[in-house]
């Protein structure tokens, strides 16, 4: 049960971090180009952004995922990191409690 809880927390924190990175990568890709018809990649090539000039003169945006691997890797690293932090934090708390008790 304890491990399930830790995994659920690490999963959601890492999910939010990944989503924030995806959004940041997307905005950066959008930033870096203003020319129509150029495909820009962001977040280590995971996301692409392309602006098309439509016949009517308007600009249409196309966004999407070009390669899911970097996103999966970011998610995995975030997950493991959160899990490690929770475990460490709990161990440290336990140690503090022990030290206080022996006093």
């Amino acid at each position, binding site marked *: 049960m304890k491990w399930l*809880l830790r995994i*659920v927390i690490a999963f*959601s924190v890492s*999910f*939010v971090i*990944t*989503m*924030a990175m*995806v*959004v*940041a990568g*997307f*905005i950066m890709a*959008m*930033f870096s180009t203003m020319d129509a018809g150029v495909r820009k990649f962001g977040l280590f090539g995971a*996301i692409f952004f392309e602006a098309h000039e439509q016949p009517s003169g308007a600009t249409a945006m196309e*966004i*999407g*995922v070009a390669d899911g691997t970097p996103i999966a890797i970011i998610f995995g690293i975030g997950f493991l990191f959160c899990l490690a932090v929770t475990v460490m*934090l709990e161990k440290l708390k336990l140690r503090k409690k022990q030290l206080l008790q022996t006093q």
Partner: protein
Amino acid sequence: MRLESIVLLFRLFWTFILRRVLGRGLLASRTMRIAGTLVVIIGFAGFNVLSYTMMRQYLGGTDLFEPILAIANISVGFWVLIAYTLIRVLFMKADELLKLTFNLPATNKERTLAFALFEASVVAVMTVFVFGAFSISTVLLEGPAFITKILVSIWLPVASVYLLLSLAYYLLERGLFMMRLARLRGLLVPMVLALGLSALFPYTNEQTAVIAESFIDGRDYRSPLLVYSMLDKNVGLWLAFLVFVAASMAIVAGIVAAAPRAYVPLRRFIILLPSKIARWRLGAYTLVLFRSFETLVAVIFVFAFSLFAWMQHIVLPPYVLALITFQGVYAYVNSEPLRRISTLHVSAWTHYLSIVGSQVILWVTIAVPVVAGSLAQGIEISACLPVAGFCLSNILISTLIGIAFPPEKGNPFTVLVGAVLAIIVILTIALGLNVFNLEPAMSAVVYSFLNILVVTYSILGMQRMERIRRHEVAS
């Protein structure tokens, strides 16, 4: 009236907020406090970048900023009134916070004014957060010359309109005192504000069209609402500022004079539904929800808006139903006494199901007539289904906010902090998932999964708070 006691009470409110908000629920742990601060800072930065990119994309290099500022200036009244209605409803709920000061040697007037000052400071913090991004990105795009333009066309009008609305509110409260209706002000004040909104909406729309027209024709647009920007343009910034200071001082003097001398407690409940249903747990929770005064206010708002939309021929899916679901923020705290009186131990699951179940009952009760009205307006039933999904998920999320950030004594600050954090996280997830271009069925699956996570967290939070209350674990 002594100024120092007003300042003292004002500080008391903030001390209460800082100690209670930073000491309860999720924010009790220091890790969560640091994480929350980080989320707010990163969210604000992201908000800035997003608004900068959007504005550069659409407006960069055009001279459309001037008319857009004029439109923003004209609609300030409308937006501030919407925000004021929200703030008013939240602060009316905070009546118990005011009761904290009852054993202190202060007059009712000082109490009211200190509360007004506290309210203004909370509003100022929130306004900086919301309008800050727009202002910063405009200045970044158009150069520092725009600082004064934004000042005279957004910030100063916002402050003046807010002060005027406060004055109007105190005058209204005085009027209600005289008519002996002050106990019902929790219902009457939001209704008056809603009436104001419905009157201002067509005016703002019309003026926006006039501004657009006069910009295309190259004419100058004049309106008494643009007084600060016109003074700035024709005479100079100093005069605009001088007029602002003079007007503010006059209005504040008016507020001091109009603040009521007597205190009348608010009516908090309304007797609806037979008490017999309290025999079941779900029935008791339903009674708590149905009988609370805020529910009545929210329901009246929903019906008033539906009627307004019907008369103005605004054809929209019934998204207004979401208004009731925000009640969920108070659902946990309002039903706290129920959990205290249960003699036998019942799992957090059961309590959670009752909390959510009662809200679903309320929602369905209101949704039936409103959706029927929408269908009569010619909206497809398939357009109403996403609304139902949205509202149900909103109930779950707002209940989670209420559990993670319990608004003790109905203090509005916790609610606002919780809402801001939740909005940042939800927007990030929604934007991120948007990049993936998922199929509708797939995104339904993802969102259902996220809702299950929300439910899990709510139940875990309730279990933890219950254990803290029984001193089984340290908070």
